C-alpha cells in the first residue's frame, strides 16, 4: 500500500503548517484535520494539561491508521503514555493495543509482527511505542535487536527527555544543563552534565534499517508525512518524535507546540530522515532562533538565568548553542535549497 506522496500546499495562508486546509482535497489533508480521524487516543485520558506525548501519540497512530486503513496493532512500553491511557477501568485507546513491560516493547512488537506474519496477515501492521527511557535506555537492547533483525515494526520513541512518569529523572536523552530530579540545579555544576547523551536516530541509522526519521509535534505535516512514508515500507523503521513535557520541562502547558517548534528552529533538535543508514532529507530552519530563546521558556533551565533574566551561566548556554550549531552544520539545516518535499 503506497500512499500518494503529499506535498506542502504552498501559496496559501497556513496550508503548509497548520493542521488543516479547507482549500485542498481530502487526500491532501492532514489526518488530524479529518473529523472522522481515528482518534486512536481518545478523550478522558489522564495526561497533564498540554501533554506533548498525548498529542504525539495521537498524531502518529492516527496517521498510521490512515495509512493502513485501520489495520494496525500497537504495542506500548511502560511510561506516562501507558499510565495515563489505561488506568483500570478505562482505556483511552481505540486501536488494538497492548502493554507488557518497560524495557521490552520492541521485542513484544517483534513478537506480534512474527505472529501476524505466520498467520499470513501481512496487511496488519505493528507500531511499537515508548518514551525516551523505554527506547534509548532500558529498551535499547530489544530495540537494537528489532533493528538488526529488520522486523516489520515501526518503532516510535516519544522523547520528552527524561523519566517523567517517575517524577522527572535524568535519562540518556536528557540534554545538558537541564534540571531533573537526579541532576538537580545545585552545586558548582547545576543540572545535567555535558556529554553526547544517546542520539537515538544515529544509533538507529547505524543499523542501516530501511527508515529512520526525527520529528516534533510542532510540525504535523512533517510528522504525518514521515509516518506515511514509514508505513509504506517493510522492515524495521524508527521514528523519534520530540514531545515537550510541561511538567518535566517546567513550561507553560500552552507552550508545548511552541517549544517543539523552537527546538527545531534553533537546531538543538535536528529534524531529519534517513533511509538505509544515509540521510535523505532534513527540515530546514525557516527562521533561525538562538537557543537561549528556547531555554528561557523552560523552568528546567531557569538556573541558567538570574532573577533579572540575564544569562547567569554563559558557558552552559554557549555549550547548548554549540550543540545546535553542530547540528546545523552536520545536517545542513540552513541554506537556500528548498526542503526536499517542496522540491
Amino acid at each position, binding site marked *: 500500500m503506497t500512499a500518494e506522496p503529499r506535498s*506542502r500546499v*504552498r*501559496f*496559501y*495562508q*497556513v*496550508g*503548509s*503548517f*497548520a*493542521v*488543516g*486546509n*479547507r*482549500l485542498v482535497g481530502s487526500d491532501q489533508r*492532514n489526518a*488530524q*484535520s479529518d*473529523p472522522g480521524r481515528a*482518534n486512536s*487516543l*481518545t*478523550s*478522558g*485520558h*489522564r*495526561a497533564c*494539561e*498540554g*501533554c*506533548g506525548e*498525548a*498529542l504525539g501519540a*495521537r498524531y502518529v497512530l492516527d496517521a498510521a491508521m490512515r495509512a493502513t486503513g485501520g489495520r494496525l496493532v500497537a504495542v506500548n512500553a511502560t511510561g506516562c503514555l501507558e499510565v495515563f*491511557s*489505561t488506568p*483500570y*477501568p*478505562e*482505556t*483511552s*485507546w*481505540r*486501536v488494538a*493495543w497492548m502493554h507488557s513491560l518497560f524495557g521490552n516493547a520492541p521485542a513484544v512488537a517483534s513478537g506480534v509482527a512474527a505472529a501476524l506474519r505466520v498467520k499470513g496477515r501481512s496487511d496488519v501492521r505493528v507500531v511499537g511505542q515508548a518514551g525516551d527511557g523505554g527506547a534509548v535506555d532500558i529498551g535499547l537492547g530489544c530495540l537494537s535487536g528489532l533493528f538488526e533483525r529488520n522486523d516489520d515494526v515501526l518503532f516510535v520513541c516519544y522523547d520528552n527527555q527524561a523519566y517523567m512518569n517517575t517524577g522527572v529523572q535524568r535519562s540518556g536523552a536528557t540534554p545538558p544543563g537541564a534540571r531533573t530530579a537526579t541532576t538537580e540545579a545545585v552545586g558548582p555544576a547545576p543540572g545535567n552534565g555535558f556529554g553526547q547523551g544517546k542520539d537515538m536516530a544515529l544509533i538507529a541509522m547505524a543499523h542501516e534499517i530501511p527508515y529512520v526519521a526525527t520529528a516534533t509535534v510542532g510540525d*504535523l505535516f512533517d510528522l504525518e508525512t514521515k509516518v506515511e512514508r514509514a508505513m509504506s515500507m517493510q522492515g524495521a523503521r524508527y521514528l523519534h518524535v520530540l514531545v515537550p513535557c*510541561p511538567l518535566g520541562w517546567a513550561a*507553560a*502547558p*500552552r*507552550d*508545548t*507546540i*511552541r517549544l517543539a*517548534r523552537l527546538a527545531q528552529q534553533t537546531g538543538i533538535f535536528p529534524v531529519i530522515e534517513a533511509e538505509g543508514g544515509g540521510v535523505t532529507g532534513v527540515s530546514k530552519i*525557516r*527562521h533561525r532562533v538562538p537557543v537561549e530563546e528556547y531555554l528561557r521558556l523552560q523552568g528546567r533551565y531557569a538556573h541558567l538565568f538570574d532573577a533579572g533574566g540575564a544569562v547567569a551561566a554563559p558557558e552552559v548556554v554557549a555549550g547548548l548553542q554549540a550543540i545546535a550549531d553542530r547540528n546545523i552544520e552536520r545536517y545542513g539545516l540552513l541554506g537556500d535549497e528548498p526542503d526536499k518535499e517542496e522540491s
Partner: protein
Amino acid sequence: MKDKPFAITLDVGSSLANKTGSWRVERPVYVDRLSPCNHACPAGEDIQGWLYRAEEGDYEGAWSVLVETNPFPAVMGRACFRPCEAACNRSGVDEAVGINAIERFLGDQAIDQGWEVPVPGPATGHRVLVVGSGPAGLSAAYHLCRLGHEVEIHEAAPMPGGMLRYGIPAYRLPRRVVDAEIERITAMGVTLVTGSPITDASSVMAGDGFDAAFVAVGAQRGRDAEIPAGDAARVVDAVLLLHGLEEGRRPGLGRRVVVYGGGDTAMDVARTAERLGATDTVVVYRRTRDRMPAHDEEVDDALAEGVRMRWLSTVARAEGGRLVLEHMDLDDEGLPRPTGELEELEADSLVLALGQDADLSLLDDLSGVRTSGGTVEVDPDQMTGCSGVFAGGDVTGGERTITGAVGEGRRAAASIDAFMDGRAPTRPLDRPLAAADRLNLWYFEDAPRMLRPRLEAARRRTNFDEVVGGLGADEALFEARRCMSCGNCFECDNCFGVCPDNAVIKLGPGKRYRFDLDYCKGCGICVQECPCGAIDLIPEPR
C-alpha cells in the same frame, strides 16, 4: 471478544467516562475580532469576508460579499488608496496582501461575466432625492434602492460619475469601467437625470414629494492661490482642466508646464500634461516629499513618466514664459517658511492644484443646515441640521477620497432608511481589533505579493491607456490566499488538531468548531497556536 481477563483487558475508548474537563481552571472561548483591513476601510467593506470566498476560487461569491457594501469593486480596485493594505498585519510576515488588486480582479470579472447584484427589496413607497452622481451619491442611491426605496439622482454634468469621471484621469480609471458600474446601478431601477443642476434643494424636495434628500455634490471648485500674475501668464485650474478634458477640450499648456500643489490632483494633472505633449513638467511643492499629501505610488508614477519635482518651493509670481519661485525651509514643526531666496523657472503654463471647495448654494434655502470652512456639517448619521436632508462625500469635507465617499453614501443610506421608517439608525458593534501580536505568525509561509503589471513609462506618454494592469485568475487566487484572516476563524483546523484531549469538535464546513468542555483541560495550546488569534483563554466561571 468475550471472556476478557478482568481489569487487565479493557474495552476500547472507555475513558470517555472520565470527564477531564473538571480539571480546568481556565477555558478557551472563540472570539471574532475586527480585522485591521476592515477597520481601516473607509467604505466599510468586509474585506476579510470577501477574501475568504475568493480564497476558495468562488469569485462571484466574493464579489457578492463585496457589493454588499461597495457597488464599485472595479473602480475601487483602481482608484482606492488602500488604507486596508497599510493596516494589513501580513506586512509583519512579508508584504501586505494585495487587497486592491484582488478587488479589481473581482470587479473586472463581474463586468466581464455580467454578474448581477441582488434584486431590490419590496418597494417601500419612500422617495429619496440624491443630488450629485459621484461616488457618494451613487453609493447612497445603490443602497437605498436595495432597501426598496425609489431614488432619483440629479446630476449637473452631462455624464454621471462626478470625480470618477471628471477628477481621475482615464489612464488610472478607464471610463468603460466607470460606465459599467454606474449602469449596474441604473439597471436596478435608480433614476438618473444628468445635466440637471439643483440650485434649490428645498423646492425640489417639496415639489416632487421626496421624503429625504442626500446631498453629494462634491467639491468641484479649485482653490485660488492669489498669485500675482502678469497678463501674459497662462494660469489654469487643475479641476477645470481635468473636467474640460473629459468633455473633449484639450487645453493648450505648451511644452513647459508647472503644476503647483502636492496632492493627488497635482500628480494627476502633471501626468496628464505629459500625455498632452509637455516635455518638461515640474511639480512645485512647498514642503518635502515625505510631507506631500499625494500618495507615494502616484508620485512614483509621475517621476517614472518624467515629471520633475521641486520641493520646498512656492510660486511667487507668474509672468509670460517664466515663473519666479521662492525657496522655503521647514520650521521645527515642519511648517514651511519663506527664505527670501528667489529663482526663475521657465514655464509656458502654470496649473494650480491647491485643493477644492464645494459649491453649497443649493442648500441656502434649507433651514438649519450649517456650514463651516466651505463644507456642510453633518451628524454621525450623515444628517445635516435640516431634518431629512443628509449629505456626504467631498461636500462634507473629511478625507475626500472615493472610498470615503462610498462609505459615507452607504452610511447615509442606512440613516435615511431609518429616518424614513422613524427608527434610530443602527450602528455596527465595536469589536476589539485583531492586533498583530495576537497572531501566531509561524503558520504563515512566506509568500511574496503578486504585483500587477504596469505599462512601461515610455509607452504612457502619448495616450491615456490604463497604466496599471489587472491580476490574472491564478495570481488573484494566490494573493487572496495570502490573507491571514486576522482575528476571525477561517477553519484551518489547528485548534481541532492541536488539542491533546480531542476536546475540540469540528462542526463542518462553514460551521467552525465547538469546545467540548467535558474533556477540555484548559491547557491553552489552541489559544497559543491559533494562527489568527481567534481564541481567548478566560478564567473558568465558578
